[in-house]
């Protein structure tokens, strides 16, 4: 296989450009469906791309006084690059000649935490009381959902007989049936749907952003292109997280499975109020984690 094709796969299709376009369209769908639920008309189709163009090419970037400037600039870039890398790793398993590498499940899960960590750093480096509060809340949120996420992933690993390569999990599901069609798999699927909502920072768990109390949370001091990097990260995660869940539980990725998960995210977002951080931790640790343990026991029993 030629290097040129590899670069094409990583940068254009199904890599960076493709993921960015799909993420932008997903963001448009999110805003449009939210608007329709509230009986409004909603934004035009290209709105997410207009926002990005504006942030990257028109607006000035203001750097607050007294911050660590290299760190302040690097944080959104790192969040963006790790989000791109994650989505490229997920989409490239569908390419015949590449098909991922050994134990890429673990790598992907760790890469998914980097954007959240960057949100924490962004809040901490901004020198703003509201953003520090936001980053402290994000920290607690990560502590609460990561446990449940690993629990639900371990159910998948037990069901597939100890496979930690994404391609192997996919092949296993193609040979038998998707993991969601068993009792323990269904429990794991529900858990990871809720974790997905928390990782995306959507409404029941948008505790760190919390527009009404913290204004914009960790992003409050970011402007111009740096805010644009956070926006792009968000768009890409809106594609890559549902894609990851779909590969793990629904046995592959196609447009219907992706839209199903996306619409679930949007409806879940629009029908729930924001939790307090204590409620979120209690919800994850004392309700979902025991459910996950039950799921693991069922998976070991073979259900």
């Amino acid at each position, binding site marked *: 296989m030629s290097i040129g094709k590899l670069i094409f796969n990583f940068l254009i299709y199904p890599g960076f450009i493709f993921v960015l376009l799909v993420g932008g369209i997903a963001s448009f769908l999110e*805003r449009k469906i939210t*608007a329709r639920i*509230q*009986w*409004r*008309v*909603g*934004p*035009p189709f*290209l*709105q997410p791309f*207009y*926002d990005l*163009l*504006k942030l990257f*090419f*028109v*607006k*000035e*970037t*203001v750097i607050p006084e007294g911050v660590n400037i290299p760190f302040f600039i690097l944080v959104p870039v790192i969040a963006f690059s790790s989000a791109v890398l994650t989505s490229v790793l997920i989409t490239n398993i569908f390419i015949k000649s590449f098909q991922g590498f050994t134990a890429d499940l673990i790598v992907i899960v760790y890469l998914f935490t980097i954007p959240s960590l960057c949100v924490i750093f962004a809040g901490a480096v901004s020198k703003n009381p509201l953003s520090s509060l936001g980053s402290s809340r994000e920290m607690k949120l990560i502590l609460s959902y990561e446990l449940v996420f690993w629990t639900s992933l371990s159910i998948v690993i037990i069901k597939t007989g100890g496979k930690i390569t994404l391609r192997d999990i996919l092949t296993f599901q193609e040979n038998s049936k998707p993991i969601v069609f068993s009792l323990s798999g269904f429990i794991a699927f529900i858990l990871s749907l809720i974790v997905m909502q928390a990782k995306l920072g959507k409404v029941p768990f948008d505790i760190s952003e919390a*527009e009404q109390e913290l*204004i*914009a949370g960790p*992003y*409050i*001091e*970011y*402007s*111009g292109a740096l*805010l644009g990097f956070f926006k792009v990260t968000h768009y890409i995660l809106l594609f890559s997280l549902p894609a990851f869940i779909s590969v793990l539980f629904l046995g592959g990725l196609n447009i219907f499975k992706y839209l199903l998960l996306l619409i679930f995210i949007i409806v879940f977002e629009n029908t729930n109020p924001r939790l307090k951080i204590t409620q979120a931790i209690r919800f994850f640790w004392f309700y979902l984690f025991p459910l996950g343990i039950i799921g693991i026991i069922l998976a070991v029993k073979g259900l």
Partner: protein
Amino acid sequence: MNKLKILTKSIWVFHFASGPCNNCDIEILDILTPRFDVERFGIKLVGSIKHADCLLITGMLTRKGVVRLKEIYEMAPKPIAVVCFGSCASSQGIFKNSYNRAVPVDEVIPVSAYIPGCPPRPEAIIDGIVKVVKKLRGEI
């Protein structure tokens, strides 16, 4: 292509309240509701001045407000449009002779548009938005 044309496709509004009577604030919320939904034009309210493209001022500028307004304008990433919303912000209204009035807004920072009215009707607000957009595009 004029860069400001892209800006007019997604205007994020920051709302600065300098002692308004809440009448104008409620009218601002009015144009976000289903009947007049301005998200059609990509306009949305943001909470931080660092994200804003439009600074919307309601209420007569008070002595305490004028310091903050100047600070906020200097913090904002340029280009930014400034809109005076309501009679009080535009011309100090009935508080012209009040003890705590400061100078009018346009003596502190450059103003792009005035939307008079007490409070302005939603139609007037949308007309004001159209004028701001046209001004940013350089059509008027």
